[in-house]
């Protein structure tokens, strides 16, 4: 006859506390070394000469013109890619046609291309010695080493953001609601604006936010096509590079801190929207 000892049932589907602590510790150290310290370093360096130095760096006319150009570039690239994303997602998610998988893969292509190559192809196309170079020179159109080149290179590198977010979202939603609207007499554009758009608006916003972050921060592709003309073709990341190479660290990090804040806002909005989109399946 044995006497049963009272003991807590060991958790059969969890790790021992030691393992949990160890794994969490390693994970936190990794995040600390690779993410938190570099982020903190940006702010620390930016304010190395106090708040006055920080403000002075941002008020510099060249910094202001870089900020303006960055805003302009994003202002061109983001709406165009949004339009494309919605159109492509509509065609891909709502219709059946051969070659669909290939189209989806082609949309992702720019993500597989090095930003430097993205810049290079536009130099090969529109540069002075490029394919269309002679024609452009004859008509006095400047694309490379000018704002249009920066815009088009940025469009290329941010091309997939909205589309790749919307395609799975719209495929998940099936066509029921749109079909219901059609049987109720709605025209195509009524169905789109009243039914489809409200259902994908958070998805669009999500794609737009990510697209914008990349558009404002793109460095490699823009670096190739810009020509680094100060006050004219310098975006914020290029301005940071120049300041840094001139050993003007405080100013470089001051401008960098703006982009860092943009990215922190971006990831905050991103995680808020992710929750919103996931709930959206059950509520509005």
């Amino acid at each position, binding site marked *: 006859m044995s006497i049963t000892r009272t003991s807590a049932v060991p958790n059969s589907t969890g790790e021992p506390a030691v393992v949990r602590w160890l794994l969490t510790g390693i994970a936190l150290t990794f995040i600390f070394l690779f993410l938190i310290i570099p982020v903190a370093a940006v702010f620390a360096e930016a304010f190395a000469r106090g708040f006055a130095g920080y403000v002075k760096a941002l008020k510099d006319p060249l910094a202001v013109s870089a900020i303006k150009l960055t805003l302009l570039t994003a202002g061109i690239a983001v709406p165009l890619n949004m339009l494309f994303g919605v159109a492509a997602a509509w065609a891909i998610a709502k219709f059946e046609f051969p070659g669909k998988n290939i189209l989806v893969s082609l949309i992702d292509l720019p993500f597989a291309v090095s930003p430097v190559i993205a810049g290079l192809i536009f130099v090969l196309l529109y540069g002075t010695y490029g394919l269309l170079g002679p024609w452009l020179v004859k008509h006095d159109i400047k694309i490379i080493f000018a704002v249009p080149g920066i815009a088009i290179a940025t469009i290329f590198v941010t091309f997939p953001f909205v589309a790749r977010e919307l395609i799975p979202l719209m495929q998940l939603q099936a066509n029921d609601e749109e079909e219901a*609207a059609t049987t109720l007499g709605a025209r195509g554009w009524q169905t789109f604006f009243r039914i489809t758009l409200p259902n994908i608006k958070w998805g669009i916003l999500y794609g737009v936010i990510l697209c914008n972050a990349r558009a404002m921060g793109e460095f490699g592709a823009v670096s190739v096509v810009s020509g680094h003309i100060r006050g004219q073709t310098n975006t914020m990341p290029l301005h940071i590079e120049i300041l840094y190479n001139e050993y003007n660290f405080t100013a470089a990090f001051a401008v960098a801190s703006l982009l860092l804040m943009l990215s922190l806002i971006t990831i905050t909005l991103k995680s808020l929207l992710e929750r919103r989109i996931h709930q959206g399946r059950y509520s509005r």
Partner: protein
Amino acid sequence: MSIEIRSVTKNFGKHCALKNIDLSIPGGELVSLLGPSGSGKTTLLRIIAGLEAPDSGSILFHGEDATKQSARDRKVGFVFQNYALFRHMTVFENVAFGLKVKPRRDRLSKSGIRDKVFQLLKLVQIDWLVDHYPFQLSGGQRQRVALARALAVEPRVLLLDEPFGALDAKVRKELRRWLRRLHDEIHVTSVFVTHDQEEALEVSDIVVVMNEGQIEQVGAPDDVYDHPANPFVHGFLGGVSIHGLPASAYVRPHEIELSRKRNGVPGFYGVVKYIFRKGTTVHLELERDNGECVDVEIDRDSFRDLELKEGEKVHAVPGNSRVFSN
């Protein structure tokens, strides 16, 4: 509004969903398309609605060819299986949608739309839910919203795809009786798809039994039940078949009588394999000498009198059996 379906065929890739379907649905009736899944009933309904195009054949509404008409112009009310409510709109906005998207000249005034929506919501008995969103509603309530939304545009025909499929058993029963009464009130030609024979027999004026893309039988519920046209219809409506007595006999489980001894009446012996007690009746599964299994349904009193146990041998006499010529 009558509906005429003329030699409609539809293939999905290599799969043939509908094979040369001919069917005419008289105006004002409540018709059910009954069949197992994959029988093509939903495809037929979607073709009537214009949500799917037939490969060949035509659809006529009131004698008028509607095959080329878009779903938008057909003026059908369609209730989707999962209701397809607009999830970002309230109940009111859902029901009002069809009224709001009309061209300006046909559109009711704002107050007109409001009155009409409330009238419809009263009709489907959910006017108190007007400001709720779909996610706040129960399945039965969503179903009623979907119905009100479809009725709002005054459709010429009302089409319902498995209208009670997503509901639990009790609500199903309630709602289908309510649908029957509603139809008696508004009398719009209605077609609904179901795989539940009980539902079809109880609610509809005409039952269309479908199987593998073809129509097996069309008739009034009693007709179809009492005089099934072929073994499939018989089987689908709950019948059993017994082979080699001397021909094949088709009976219903409750039409088989059991006795301990053979009383000189032709029948067959079987061993009781399983006994299921099911409310007022008892279901027995008999195994014949030839391995064939036969379902039998008897009432509780006869079961008690027979004192049957699993593993015992019993004599069964099929009554009222039908023979189908192939």
